[in-house]
């Protein structure tokens, strides 16, 4: 097998492929998803949707698939993982690629809750609702790369999808220490953290994980959450939801049949896992 890496969607992507030509094909797949789903590219399909005035919008087949997945994950997470929070995260300052965030601007938090739904290829949304597909699009790209047969293992910024029974994933805590090795095998694993993608705001700091109940960056005793599931989009949503559930996060994850295992790093450094999470000695 051949290992390679490239940069896409604002993060580093590591791929393991069987044939050399699959590296470029996987990179092209990620580029295509980013070109369609980025909210930072003015010409992307998502930017066109967000900038449109109409309440009902016809979207492309791939976009409809991603939005339908996002709607499903919102339901599964009791509304906590909501792709409709694009306006809220922009209002807190994350309105451009993370590398060029303006840390001098003052946040202007919004107060209106996002409302959106999918019906076939039609997106319906309330005025002011802006879609942010950052997390689900990255997970979807990982899933597509593996399910299409291009990649054996893909790791996009800690979101891992594998079809190799030998795949293992080291979970790294926010302090850079390895806390566990997971024998992932065939499946997906994702980690969400509030210690990444943080930026300064006047009087403090903000981060990318918005709590839909407060429309503000989440406050949680969990600083890093990892979930194992069948697909990357599920693992990514599960990890975010755990973090947003706070101290109930692990209990919530253990009760979800689609989450095979979960691990959480507490703010003071403690690490807990559900019984379902398989671990191996490193």
């Amino acid at each position, binding site marked *: 097998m051949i290992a390679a890496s490239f940069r896409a969607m604002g993060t580093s992507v590591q791929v393991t492929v069987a044939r050399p030509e699959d590296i470029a094909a996987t990179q092209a797949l990620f580029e295509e998803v980013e070109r369609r789903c980025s909210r930072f590219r003015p010409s992307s399909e998502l930017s066109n949707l967000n900038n449109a005035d109409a309440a009902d919008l016809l979207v492309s087949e791939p976009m409809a698939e991603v939005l339908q997945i996002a709607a499903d994950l919102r339901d599964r997470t009791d509304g906590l993982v909501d792709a409709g929070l694009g306006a809220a995260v922009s209002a807190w300052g994350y309105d451009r690629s993370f590398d060029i965030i303006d840390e001098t601007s003052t946040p202007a938090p919004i107060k209106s809750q996002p409302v959106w739904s999918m019906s076939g290829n039609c997106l319906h949304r309330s005025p002011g609702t802006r879609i942010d597909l950052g997390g689900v699009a990255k997970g979807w790209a990982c899933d597509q790369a593996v399910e299409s047969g291009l990649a054996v293992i893909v790791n996009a910024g*800690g979101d891992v999808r594998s079809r190799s029974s030998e795949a293992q994933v*080291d979970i790294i805590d926010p302090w850079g220490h390895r806390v566990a090795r997971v024998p992932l095998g065939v499946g997906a694993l994702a980690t969400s953290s509030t210690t990444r993608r943080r930026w300064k705001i006047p009087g403090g700091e903000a981060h990318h994980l918005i709590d839909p109940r407060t429309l503000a960056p989440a406050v949680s005793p969990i600083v890093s959450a990892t979930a194992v599931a069948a697909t990357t989009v599920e693992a990514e949503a599960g990890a975010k939801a755990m973090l947003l559930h706070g101290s109930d996060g*692990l209990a919530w994850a253990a009760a979800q049949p689609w989450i095979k295992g979960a691990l959480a790093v507490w703010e003071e450094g403690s690490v807990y896992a559900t019984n379902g999470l398989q671990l191996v000695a490193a």
Partner: protein
Amino acid sequence: MIRKRFPTIRTTRIAAWTTVAVAWAVAIVGRQMEAPAQEDLVVAETTRATAPAAETTTTMPTLPEDGLVVIRYTPAPPPPPTVVRQVVVQAGPAPSPTVSTSQGS
């Protein structure tokens, strides 16, 4: 003349030292008399300072029905990462293509 002044100086010194000694003794006695009040004050301050901490419950994970695995328990915040300087004299083995890392994004 000298004989006449010497006793005066001596008397003055004795009087001065006596005054200092008495003042010192009074201060000691006074401090001992005030001590119980200060102890009361210390107790009161301690009680006030620890009250909020006693009310704040330590955030622990809610226990899942099928139990919880404690991988690491750290009641105090871990120290900041230390910078380790390492001289690599020979390239190590290439990373395994089947082992990934996940730290979040």
